[in-house]
């Protein structure tokens, strides 16, 4: 664990730091309150801090209060280190936001025991944070392909559309549908169909730009959001994707299966659409056109009065 030790007395600081290092911790020393606060405000702040109460500049109580006032940051376990041991002092420290109390002069066995309590809390917090992150991922990602799920990609589409409108940049939306996917499932079974979808998600992930977003919209249909991308660039991206997938068969469960995709492409510049549902609808129309015109191809939607609408 990385631990901050703040004390203006070099002897107490050395005693604590020495033992912490001996027990395998990384020690960040500070000689006064302001230095301690600066370190604790940094993004890579230690997860534990032992703060002397009486320090020049800023005392431990003030450092503690300011650390606790920082919004949205990982919990720092704070131990007040002091020779003040009246009940009133204890209450003041706890009220200021300290988690524990370490009496001066420091007794190495007490230090060890207080540290154990702190580690228990920190580990608990880390586990909780990890569980929350996992739940968040699961709520927004497709379990089969690990790309964004419908809710996740739609949320991104709303956010990216708003951003594109704000920055006056073009956003491209690609609706990618696997051709004759039902036949794959019927011929080889659903487990093989799942493998094909997984392969396609990986292939698409490696073909798009690092700042594009890929999601599974449902069934065998994927969505790609390409922000800040010209209509020509978007067409090149869609064509590259289509060709990449058609180029070689998918190997699944010992079968070499030829898979192609049809892509409906729309851009905000060409459609003048800013509403996510409307843009999605236009992409759907373009996709329908790609299917009708023979599959394994890209069609671009032109928005209102578009070729796609006429074709319907």
């Amino acid at each position, binding site marked *: 664990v990385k631990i901050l030790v703040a*004390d*203006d*007395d*070099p*002897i*107490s600081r*050395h*005693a604590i730091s*020495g*033992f912490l290092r001996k027990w395998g911790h990384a020690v960040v020393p500070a000689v006064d309150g302001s230095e301690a606060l600066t370190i604790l405000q940094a993004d890579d702040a230690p997860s534990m801090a032992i703060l*002397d109460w*009486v320090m*020049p500049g800023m005392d431990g109580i003030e450092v503690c209060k300011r650390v606790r006032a920082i919004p949205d940051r990982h919990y720092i376990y704070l131990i007040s280190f002091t*020779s003040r041991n009246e009940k009133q002092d204890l209450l003041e420290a706890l009220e200021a936001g300290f988690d524990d109390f370490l009496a*001066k*002069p*420091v*007794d*190495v*066995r007490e230090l060890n025991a207080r540290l154990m309590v702190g580690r228990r809390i920190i580990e608990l917090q880390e586990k909780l944070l990890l569980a929350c992150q996992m739940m968040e991922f699961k709520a927004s990602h497709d379990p089969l392909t690990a790309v964004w799920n419908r809710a996740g990609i739609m949320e991104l589409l709303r956010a990216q559309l708003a951003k594109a409108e704000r920055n006056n940049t073009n956003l491209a939306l690609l609706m990618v549908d696997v051709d004759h996917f039902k036949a794959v499932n019927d011929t080889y079974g659903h487990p093989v169909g799942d493998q094909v979808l997984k392969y396609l998600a990986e292939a698409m992930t490696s073909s798009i730009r690092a700042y594009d977003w890929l999601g599974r919209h449902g069934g065998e249909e994927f969505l790609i959001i390409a922000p800040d991308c010209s209509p020509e660039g978007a067409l090149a991206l869609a064509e590259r994707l289509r060709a990449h997938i058609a180029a070689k068969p998918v190997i699944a469960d010992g079968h070499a299966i030829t898979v192609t995709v049809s892509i409906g492409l729309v851009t905000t510049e060409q459609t003048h659409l800013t509403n996510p549902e409307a843009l999605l609808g236009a992409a759907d129309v373009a996709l329908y056109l790609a299917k009708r015109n023979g599959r394994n191809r890209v069609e671009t939607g032109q928005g209102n009065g578009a070729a796609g609408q006429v074709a319907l």
Partner: protein
Amino acid sequence: MDVAGAMSLVAGDDQMLKELCGLFLEQSPVMYANIDQAITAKDSQALQRAAHTLKGAAGALCAVRTIQVAQQLELLARDHDLERAAATSQVLHHEIMALHAAIENFVGVQ
């Protein structure tokens, strides 16, 4: 200096205790200079802090008498009694010198 007490604080780690002793020999003159300066400047707040720091340092070595005198000085500074503080700081200086001798004796024996 209560060697047994100090040794107990570090759970018998005599190497660590020697390091702390060395640090005290090195740093206590600086700490005392801060006290002296605060008295000359009649800055009772700085004096209170400087005395407190020295008390903490002496605490790690279980130097009972130095701790007591430093604490007295801290309280006098808190009460802005700079006249008595000046006299007490002389006593403290004397105690620190005695402590230095005790530490050198301890480190030498070890």
